[in-house]
């Protein structure tokens, strides 16, 4: 028996390798006497992220495919990887605030963040269902642990357990879908599945159609699409605040990357019934997320419902399924990373050991007591609401114009209506920041940690930059669309 060893090209998984090495070093550091030297741990984490950034950017010029077509670091993957790595970098910096420092074992925590990032990057570049599964699980299992980092706090553990049980449940559906697709097509490679659909059609065998449905349910759970969104508010509210931001932005970017690839490479966008299903899901997701966010007083919970709504906006672009889809999804994911991680970051920067201001009433007057943090929060809220000249406006504009160009006028109109609803609850936060007197005794807000300040500054600049000069970013991303 002769065995052909598939092409091994480590360049295709270079960013993941860099992060894995960094994470392993961090785990070993947590054993020795350096486990409390924040500077060293931060340097290792940021260093490996920087190497990963460099390798990803290098792949823009030279896309690679390797491991028997299981991994492709093409421009599409590069676009999503940039969003994922940004989310990870910001999270690493934002976790240095006072409250998190009081209980986190920083070395282990950074290690887990990097492992989760590895899983996300694999999802972005996976071209076989095996790799999608492995990436999805690497990211999920790390995030289960990250959600439960406040080990003495019942709500954090409760969030972790709920996330874990529903995540594992979703994994079951996802994997069953993979198994049925494999049974129908005899392959796990996305491209070969695409060939099968090309000749047999999506309803060629009931096995295949059912498999795709189960796959969609599994993904629906992971990206929190209505009606599979029930876990999101509980988990985002209970998890440590920087982790919530990371979960929302990073895992959403990664799962959408894999979903877009599966939809366009494997299942094919031309199937009418498939698109109709996504159409309904997108509308439901936008409205349920936005309407439920309106009644929330807890800002973390409000952001959780808003993250559901944002998943809906991104689905709009996927429904459109034209040449604008990929670039607008990547633009949205990038923007969402900065504004969402930023918003959670401000909340965690305001949290001290004695008090965690999570209720919107507790934010009264913060705009005057902590001017910089207040300004940053206001900008994040404006961007999330889609007010020009922030990047959030351009992101929504691109998504909806993709839908209009594809002829889904009603979908775009419904999307805009949903976005109108969202303006209420985002601006409510701004109103409390600037126009309400603080009730009761004045709180002593914690001092701003430099690393947190830098991260928030970068996020604000990115949002304003992408909002004012969207054309140059979009021009780059257009080239990402072509190569898939």
């Amino acid at each position, binding site marked *: 028996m002769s065995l052909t060893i598939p092409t091994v090209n480590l360049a295709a998984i270079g960013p993941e390798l860099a992060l894995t090495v960094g994470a392993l070093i961090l785990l070993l550091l947590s054993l020795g006497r350096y486990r409390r030297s924040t500077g060293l741990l931060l340097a290792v984490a940021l260093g490996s992220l920087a190497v990963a950034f460099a390798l990803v950017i290098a792949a823009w010029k030279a896309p690679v495919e390797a491991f028997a077509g299981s991994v492709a670091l093409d421009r599409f993957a590069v676009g999503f990887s940039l969003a994922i790595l940004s989310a990870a970098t910001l999270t690493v910096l934002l976790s240095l605030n006072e409250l998190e420092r009081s209980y986190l074992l920083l070395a282990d925590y950074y290690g887990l963040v990097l492992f989760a990032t590895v899983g996300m990057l694999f999802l972005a570049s996976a071209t076989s*269902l*095996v790799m999608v*599964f*492995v990436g999805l*699980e690497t990211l999920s*299992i790390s995030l*289960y*642990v990250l959600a*439960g980092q406040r*080990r*003495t706090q*019942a*709500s954090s*553990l*409760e*969030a*972790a*357990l*709920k996330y*874990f*049980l529903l995540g*594992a*449940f979703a*994994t*079951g559906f996802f*994997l*069953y879908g*993979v*198994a*049925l697709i*494999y*049974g129908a097509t*005899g*392959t*796990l490679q996305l491209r070969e599945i695409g060939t099968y659909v090309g000749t047999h059609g999506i309803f060629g065998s009931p096995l295949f159609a059912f498999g795709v449905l189960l796959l969609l349910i599994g993904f629906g759970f992971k990206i929190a699409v209505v009606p599979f969104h029930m876990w999101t*508010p*509980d988990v985002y*509210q*209970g998890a440590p605040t920087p982790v919530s931001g990371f979960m929302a932005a990073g895992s959403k970017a990664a799962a959408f990357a894999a979903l877009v690839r599966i939809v366009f490479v494997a299942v094919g966008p031309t199937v009418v019934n498939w698109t109709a299903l996504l159409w309904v899901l997108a509308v439901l997701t936008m409205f349920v997320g936005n309407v439920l966010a309106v*009644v*929330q007083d*807890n800002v973390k*919970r409000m952001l959780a419902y808003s993250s559901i709504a944002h998943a809906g906006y991104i689905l709009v672009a996927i429904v459109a399924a034209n040449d604008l889809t990929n670039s607008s999804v990547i633009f949205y994911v990038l923007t969402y990373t900065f504004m969402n991680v930023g918003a959670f970051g401000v909340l965690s920067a305001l949290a001290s050991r004695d008090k965690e201001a999570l209720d919107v009433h507790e934010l009264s007057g913060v705009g005057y007591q902590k001017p910089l943090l207040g300004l940053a929060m206001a900008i994040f809220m404006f961007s999330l609401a889609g007010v020009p000249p922030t990047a959030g406006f351009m992101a929504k504009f691109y998504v909806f114009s993709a839908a209009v160009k594809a002829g889904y006028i009603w979908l775009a109109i419904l999307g805009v209506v949903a976005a109108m609803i969202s303006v209420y609850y985002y601006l409510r936060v701004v109103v409390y920041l600037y126009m309400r007197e603080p009730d009761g005794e004045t709180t002593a807000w914690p001092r701003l940690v430099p690393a947190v300040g830098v991260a928030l500054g970068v996020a604000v600049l990115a949002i304003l930059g992408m909002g004012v000069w969207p054309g140059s970013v979009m021009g780059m991303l257009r080239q990402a669309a072509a190569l898939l």
Partner: protein
Amino acid sequence: MSPQHYLVLAGILFTIGVTGVLIRKNALIVFMSIELMLNAVNLTLVTFSHFMRSPDGQVLVFFSIVVAAAEVAVGLALIVALFRLSGSTNLDDFNLLKW
């Protein structure tokens, strides 16, 4: 024996698992039901792999077994940590987070 026997068995096991997750209230039993779902999938994959003479499915089963083991470790650790804090494994008792 034809593949149908195995596939139907796997389908039944998967359904039992899903039902268990939906109706049971004990975190441990819900977790065991999820494991049952994963094992049903493994059976499906191995069946397809065997009858189509393609090794891909079995490779995926290896990964799925390993991932399930990692999930067991994390999940049980979470359940134990929560039990130490609250003295319960009943999912209805975990209701701090609600609107």
